[in-house]
């Protein structure tokens, strides 16, 4: 009965950093709470009322004390704040060599897609010592992806991407929880992450071999006729997508466009996604507003397919845009609605 954990497992590179900060604040808590409780008890013992008509000396304040208990807590708070920022920086900045895994939350399951095209539901696999970056979104309501043993968490927000990263340090199986209330089966939106040695992982990957995300994305790129306009040529009707990922793009500020003159945007996953769902939101300089591109909503490009398209666009190098086939139909003929203003 007394055999229960009060300390979570610590299985990622950031976990010890969070742990150290946690222990520091625990020490502060114990110290200050003990001071307050101790003085309460001490004063109660020393100064309980001896006689009903007892009137104690009437102090009205002391500037020195008051400055003291304003200044000292301020300094302590600043130290905790600064340490918190340092740990937070570790938590939010992924290393450059992190492997991308895409996560889609929906009522009530987690779907994971690996770069090699492998897919899992309510499960994740990772390698000891290899950093992983999760790009997370939701198909419906808010969810939150949390792995307590790694001390990481990020909300899954419909309509945008959030990220988290971790580098496991121990082989094992750990909880994945949804921590943002998401409706009836919220408490069953849980899973496991299995951390393995490299060799086991490769074996697991090969057993689940699929066409890679970028390859799947290339197929979609052709199927959705993106190439009709994004032809990779300077006279094309839409900007070239070659090597566009993480470039800073100057924006068009045509009449009616909701951007300020001179504005630019970083072409990260969020921007690529937004430009597919809502083409007119931020138009690259040199192209007209509203966009001539149709808006691809969930019925045309699911969140899973969106990740594949983005994986493809990220992989697109100079001169790799597929040749345009003039005989295929335009996207609008496929049933896509006209671009929304």
């Amino acid at each position, binding site marked *: 009965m007394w055999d229960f954990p009060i300390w979570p497992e610590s299985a990622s590179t950031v976990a010890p950093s969070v742990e150290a900060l946690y222990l520091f604040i625990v020490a502060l808590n114990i110290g200050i709470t003990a001071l307050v409780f101790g003085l309460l008890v001490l004063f109660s013992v020393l100064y309980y009322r001896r006689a009903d*008509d007892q009137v104690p000396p009437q102090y009205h304040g002391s500037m020195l004390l008051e400055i003291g208990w304003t200044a000292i807590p301020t300094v302590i708070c600043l130290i905790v704040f600064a340490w918190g920022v340092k740990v937070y920086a570790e938590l939010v900045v992924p290393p450059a060599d992190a492997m991308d895994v895409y996560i889609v939350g929906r009522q009530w399951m987690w779907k994971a897609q690996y770069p090699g095209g492998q897919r899992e539901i309510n499960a994740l696999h990772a390698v000891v010592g290899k950093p992983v970056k999760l790009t997370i979104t939701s198909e419906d309501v808010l969810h939150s992806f949390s792995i307590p043993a790694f001390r990481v968490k990020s909300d899954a927000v419909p309509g945008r991407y959030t990220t988290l990263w971790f580098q496991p340090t121990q082989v094992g199986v750990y909880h994945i929880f949804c*921590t943002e209330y998401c409706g009836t089966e919220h408490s069953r939106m849980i899973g496991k992450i299995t951390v393995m040695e490299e060799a086991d992982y490769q074996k697991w990957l090969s057993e689940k071999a699929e066409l890679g995300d970028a390859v799947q994305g290339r197929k979609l790129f052709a199927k959705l006729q993106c190439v009709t306009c994004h032809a990779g040529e300077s006279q094309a009707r839409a900007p070239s997508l070659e090597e566009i990922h993480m470039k800073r793009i100057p924006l068009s500020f045509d009449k009616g466009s909701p951007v300020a003159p001179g504005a630019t945007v970083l072409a990260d996953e969020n921007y690529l996604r937004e430009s597919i769902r809502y083409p007119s939101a931020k138009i690259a300089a040199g192209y007209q507003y509203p966009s001539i591109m149709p808006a691809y*909503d969930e019925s045309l490009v699911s969140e899973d397919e969106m990740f594949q398209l983005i994986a493809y666009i990220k992989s697109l190098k100079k001169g790799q845009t597929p040749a345009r086939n003039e005989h295929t139909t335009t996207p609008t003929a496929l049933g896509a609605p006209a671009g929304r203003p």
Partner: protein
Amino acid sequence: MSTIITSAPPASAGSKDPGHGGGVDYLNHETSIASWLLTLDHKRIGILYLVAMSAMFVLGGFYASLIRAELITPKGDLMSSDFYNKSFTAHGVIMVFFVLIPLVPASLGNFMLPLMIGAKDVAFPRLNLISWYVYMIGAGFTLVALIGGGVDSGWTFYTPLSTTYLNSNVLLTATGLFILGFSSILTGLNFIVTIHRMRCPGMDWFRMPLFVWALYATSVIQLLGTPVIAITLALVGVERLLGVGIFDPRLGGDPILYQHLFWFYSHPAVYIMILPPLGVTNELISTFSRKPIFGYSMMAGASLAIAIFSFIVWAHHMFTSGLSPYAAMFFSLLTFSVAIPSGIKVFTWLATLFRGSISFDSPMLYAYGFIGLFTIGGMTGLFLSTLGTDIHFHDTYFVVAHFHYVMVGGAIVGFMGGLHFIWPKMFGRMYPEFPARMSAILIFVGFNLTFFPQFLVGYLGMPRRYHEYPDEFQVLNVFSSAGATVLGVGYLLPLLYLPWSVFFGEKAGRNPWGATTLDWTHTESPPTPHNFEETPVVTGEPYKYDTLFNKESALAGH
């Protein structure tokens, strides 16, 4: 101990008063039901609120007991997920909006404010009555929503779950809360005008009891913050009813916008709950140690500082929502700014107790409980304002434990202290001291048993609002549920002995505690319908005990 004090000189003034014992007071000058329902007397309106909020508290507590019963086992074996979700939503909505937010200002505040500043009533007595009816109408809507199938959005109504995906009574509940908000706004407005315009001669700003300062700071938040939540709930209605895209990304909206709007009110709302009990505690600590509050102006300033800072920290509820890291750092730093005035208050009370003459009547036991629980609640807030640790704790039971320490351990325990303190003034009778002390101790012990294990289980990573949970969290949850039983008994006792004492309690003198503010020195227990026989004139500070046993100066008002 109280009986001994009743015989002390300041109290003896009550016995020779013609109004006492068979005289006319605000309770007996009219007794029909209509005289209560149409009353414009701030004291009676305070009691109307007290009765209504007690009923809501019992209902909210009932839902809490369902939650704790379900969580004894890891499997969801007692009720369906839907019903569980509806239970914690009902618990949250009732406790936050119908109990904690109006609790101290509407009951103790309504009763005490005019008495403390030497006024015959609040500035707008009719508005005061209207605010109670608005509260009742809002409560009616919400109760209909609960009876008619419930609502499972959580008290936070996060979008797009609440606007697009749920088919429960979201609109009805939101309408109830929209209406309720006006009650809060009207009370805030009324108090601000009362404090500005109705103070008796000589009652300078810095001669006001500190409870009045706390009510003032609270009223400012109520007046400025509540319209924001009203608008936000209206927008939820517009999206849900008309499909206008505001928060749902499928319609072109932004769910994070909702969180900004919601917390812009709901974080300051925490200070609406906690500032008045902080104010009450000043009165208790001063009275039961017979010392002026150490550093009066610092304490008054700290209340105002908390009110102002409360409006610039809201995004600390959103550190995991994909907020820009720079914004997160900014809000983390600002959040620490609230810790400073909160700390000042606790240290100030300790300094006040130093070399005091401390008596342990039950209001003081509650005040001690308040300081202890508020300290733990406040200190554990450090884990959540610190970015590096908040990511792990966000939306776990750690957060649940933290805000219960502040909002229940702080607000409810502070309220209980205040209620026992003014009980003899309210009804002219003493409550029985022994069960009152028992209740104070049971609540303190039961509260810690209930919520301390939740810090641990939260650190393990157990998410909040979970109907089922992994087996390894069970032992801590069983502790928590066992503690809730003790806590429940602690709450039940006052529901029995307080009503009993209204009829059978020992008669109280006008100043059984030997307090020094106008409500005790210049009014009868219970007060006459218009509070003061003649307008009091204040000549000095509010807390002055060296003249306490000099009858003439005590009666002359300091």
